[in-house]
């Protein structure tokens, strides 16, 4: 039963990953990534990481992918041009990917860790549930937890600064929102962009 679930989820994850790389339309790429993320959540459940699996589905497949879909819809799912600016890129890239996989596999299988051949440590039923993870996050890893919250805040502010409407004024070399006429129509749109980006993050 476990083997069936593992191979099913592994096929889903691999198929999703190949779909992201191979599909020409970015919108289908985002959908393939959602398949990939759900399959990974199944693998996390097999590894008794219930909270990580739930966070994967809610945060990744939910919020982050919605952000992707919005941006792809905004910039238009334009397909890439066919021509190759770098000669041989189409052959070299899969070659490099295969070389990376072989190298990683040699590193993994050559490490001769005895625990690799086992099912992992025998864990109690509460392993990886929200209570245990939350206790670790708020006691042992309190400082990294707070640092990551500051990082999230900075990312939200950075996205507003980067994608806000103000950047258009600097491109045109117009006086930066000094005149009241420029200010009044610009501000509501800017606030909207910031709020939606921050909420989705």
């Amino acid at each position, binding site marked *: 039963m476990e083997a069936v679930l*593992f191979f099913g989820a592994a096929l889903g994850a*691999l198929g999703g*990953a190949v779909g*992201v*790389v191979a599909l020409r339309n*970015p919108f289908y790429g985002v959908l393939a990534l959602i398949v*990939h*993320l759900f399959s*990974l959540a199944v*693998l996390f459940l097999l590894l*008794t*990481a219930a*909270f*990580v699996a739930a*966070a*994967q589905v809610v*945060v*990744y497949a939910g*919020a*982050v992918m919605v*952000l*992707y879909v919005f*941006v792809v819809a905004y*910039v238009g799912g*334009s397909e*890439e041009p066919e021509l190759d*600016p*770098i000669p041989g*890129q189409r052959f070299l*890239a899969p070659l490099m*990917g295969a070389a*990376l*996989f072989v190298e*990683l596999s040699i590193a*993994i*299988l050559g490490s001769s860790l005895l*625990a*690799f*051949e086992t*099912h*992992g*440590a025998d*864990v109690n039923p509460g*392993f*990886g549930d929200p209570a245990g*993870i939350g206790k*670790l*996050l708020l006691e*042992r890893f309190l400082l*990294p937890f707070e640092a990551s919250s500051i*990082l*999230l805040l*900075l*990312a939200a502010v950075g*996205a507003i600064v*980067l*994608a806000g409407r103000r950047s*258009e004024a600097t491109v045109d070399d117009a006086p930066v929102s000094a005149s009241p006429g420029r200010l009044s129509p610009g501000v509501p749109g800017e606030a909207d962009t910031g709020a939606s*980006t921050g909420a989705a*993050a």
Partner: protein
Amino acid sequence: MNIEWYVVLSSLLFAVGAMGILLRRSPIVILLCLELMLNAGNLALVAFSKMVGNQQGQVFAIVVMVVAACEVVVGLGLIVAIFRRKLPLDVDSLRELRG
């Protein structure tokens, strides 16, 4: 299933993501391939956490997810800014910083 399988699958997913970054030229797809690589790292972290029977690896995986969310927000903000300035969404055309 042995832990080995999970770690080999994670390295395979990482290699596919790296291949995508080398192959594709749309910045959106490159961000998607970055997600693939980060998730492959997450799978390895959770597998090792099961291997040693310690939950700390799962906390690491959650922190990696936070970093990935931040990277997505800033990256998509950059893409929207590029689109607003009517520049082409192609990493080979945006080569002003090239030495």
